[in-house]
């Protein structure tokens, strides 16, 4: 892992218009998110359902047009049709649902081969077939099954097809959008380990989106925590996991089950009051203040900036001194 920044996300915003009678409401799915990812590292992105983590991944890959903000890859600003098309060769995505994300009318070799066709990554048919065979071997699929359709495979195998497809263009960076949450627990570990093996082998950089904190801690170099479209804490994986600072991260981590009743009983589970506010009607200032046990007047006035609390560990909270 190097200190070279591979991906820089600056003040990224993604708002969706939600029709509401004659007017339309703004849903701030991602609101002013800034972070970078170093080459070769895995940034784990966590948060509860609906906090905008998937939208962050998709917007970075320009599957949604960003409302505002910039994405730099290898120092280059990603904007405009041509740049985006080139960008698709370097950055790919593994989707959450291995059942619905594969076109049911295509065979495995078509699914994996299409990115090769689109970006013209082979000179003859034999090379294409060879490449597909290599990719299938790489993710642990038998290349004899290349002419089968996606529905003939199990969930874990389908996710492997999705990974082979993402790897087809030889990318440097992959957004893994909850890649194991749709799989059986027994398969999850296999797939997570495969992600790690592939990273070591191919020098990949990951943005690993998940809500399973144990999986994220296992695979990540650093962890970023989101709440209601905002980034509230980011730091080295072990530190965020064992010594969380932001009150939201603290409560989130207290919810992680511990497989030992003695420890579990001794641990104090922090229950948050109330529900997550609707992203259509965001509270003023810090979005977490309506549920935060430490909220004060300042929290209602402005959104706290990310402050470096420890080296490389940033937290956005008025109550935490930098």
């Amino acid at each position, binding site marked *: 892992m190097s200190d070279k920044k591979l991906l820089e996300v600056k003040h990224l915003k993604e708002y969706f218009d939600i029709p509401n009678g004659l007017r339309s409401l703004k849903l701030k799915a991602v609101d002013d998110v800034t972070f970078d990812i170093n080459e070769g590292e895995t940034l784990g992105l966590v948060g509860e359902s609906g906090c905008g983590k998937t939208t962050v991944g*998709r917007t970075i*890959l320009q*599957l949604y047009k960003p409302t505002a903000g910039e994405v730099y890859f290898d120092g280059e600003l990603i904007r405009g049709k041509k740049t985006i*098309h080139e960008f*698709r*060769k370097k950055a*790919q*995505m593994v*989707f959450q*649902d291995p059942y*619905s*994300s*594969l*076109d*049911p*009318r295509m*065979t495995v070799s078509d699914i994996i081969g*299409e*990115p090769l066709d*689109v*970006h013209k990554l082979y000179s003859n048919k034999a090379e294409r077939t060879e490449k597909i065979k290599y990719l299938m071997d790489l993710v642990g699929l038998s290349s004899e099954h290349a002419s089968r*359709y996606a*529905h003939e495979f199990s969930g874990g195998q389908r996710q492997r097809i*999705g990974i082979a*497809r993402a790897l087809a*263009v030889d990318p440097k960076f992959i957004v893994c959008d909850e890649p194991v949450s749709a799989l059986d627990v027994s398969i999850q570990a296999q797939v997570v380990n495969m992600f790690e093996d592939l990273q070591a082998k191919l020098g990949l950089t990951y943005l690993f989106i998940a809500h399973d904190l144990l999986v994220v801690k296992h695979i990540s170099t650093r962890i970023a925590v989101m709440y209601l479209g905002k980034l509230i804490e980011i730091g080295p994986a072990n530190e965020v996991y064992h010594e969380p600072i932001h009150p939201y991260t603290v409560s989130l981590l207290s919810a992680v089950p511990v497989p030992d009743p003695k420890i579990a009983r001794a641990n104090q589970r922090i229950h948050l009051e109330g529900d997550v506010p609707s992203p259509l009607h965001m509270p003023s200032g810090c979005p977490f203040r309506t549920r935060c046990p430490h909220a004060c007047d300042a929290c209602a006035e402005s959104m706290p900036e990310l402050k470096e609390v420890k080296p490389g560990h940033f937290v956005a909270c008025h109550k935490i001194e930098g």
Partner: protein
Amino acid sequence: MDSKLALYIVKRLLLAIFTVFLIITITFFVMKAIPGGPFLSEKSPSPEVTAALEAKYGLDKPVFEQYITYLKDLLRGDFGPSIKNRGRQVIDLIMEGFAVSAKNGLIAACLAIVIGLVLGALAAVFHDSWIDKTIMVLSTAFVAIPSFVVATLLLLIFCITFPIFPANGNVSGGLVLPIISLSLSPMSYITRLTRSSMLDVLGQDYIRTARAKGVSNTKVIFKHALKNAVTPVITYVGPMIAYILTGSLVVEKVFAVPGLGDFFFSSITNRDYPMVMGTTIFLATLMVIMTLLSDICYKIFDPRVDLS
């Protein structure tokens, strides 16, 4: 897989023969149960002549015997003579009418499928825009308006107000309006089917996967989306083609096209028994074949469909 498909086709064909046989039987007895006969017009011939004619066509025998005789003839490929069109064989009359209806129908069906698919896809891609709204209003209108109104309106507008096309279907250029009137309703139906199916498919995850691969927008729409969206259309198109090929009574009447639809209707009012049977069998067979074909297409377009 291919032997499975062959077995399936054989099974379906056997079933089809049974279906057609059932239709023959039901039609035969229902037809005989309707009061009246082929020789009961205003200028009825004398009872002696009627009796002689009935004896000639075997109508004096018990119904069940007539039925057995008819089936025997049918097995030899003999549809019998037409009663009203003296000296003509039913099979020849059907083929003559079908030649006309099928030509119009084939063009109309192609128009309906191609334009319907394109308009439906356009409406879905530009969902909620004015393009979508215009297409939806028009297609709803043409699905709802009955064909005799459409045909008459077209006649009024393009033959009388602006005499661009002839009103008679027998002269050159005369088939343009009948073909348009034939195709408008199925075209609108296909448009609506394609649109709703496309909207569903465009929201699917694998469309996003295709975009993430870097597939161009046009290709995403035609290769990934339309191919997946076409399934419900296939189900509709099979029987639609059978109907449209056998001609529409209304359209053929309005534009004086000598097609099969006209024959079918007049043979019923005339109690031309062999003619009714012949056209019914023809229509039923065509329908069964088209349904079978659309099921096979289904399999080709959707590998997940298990035929067995």
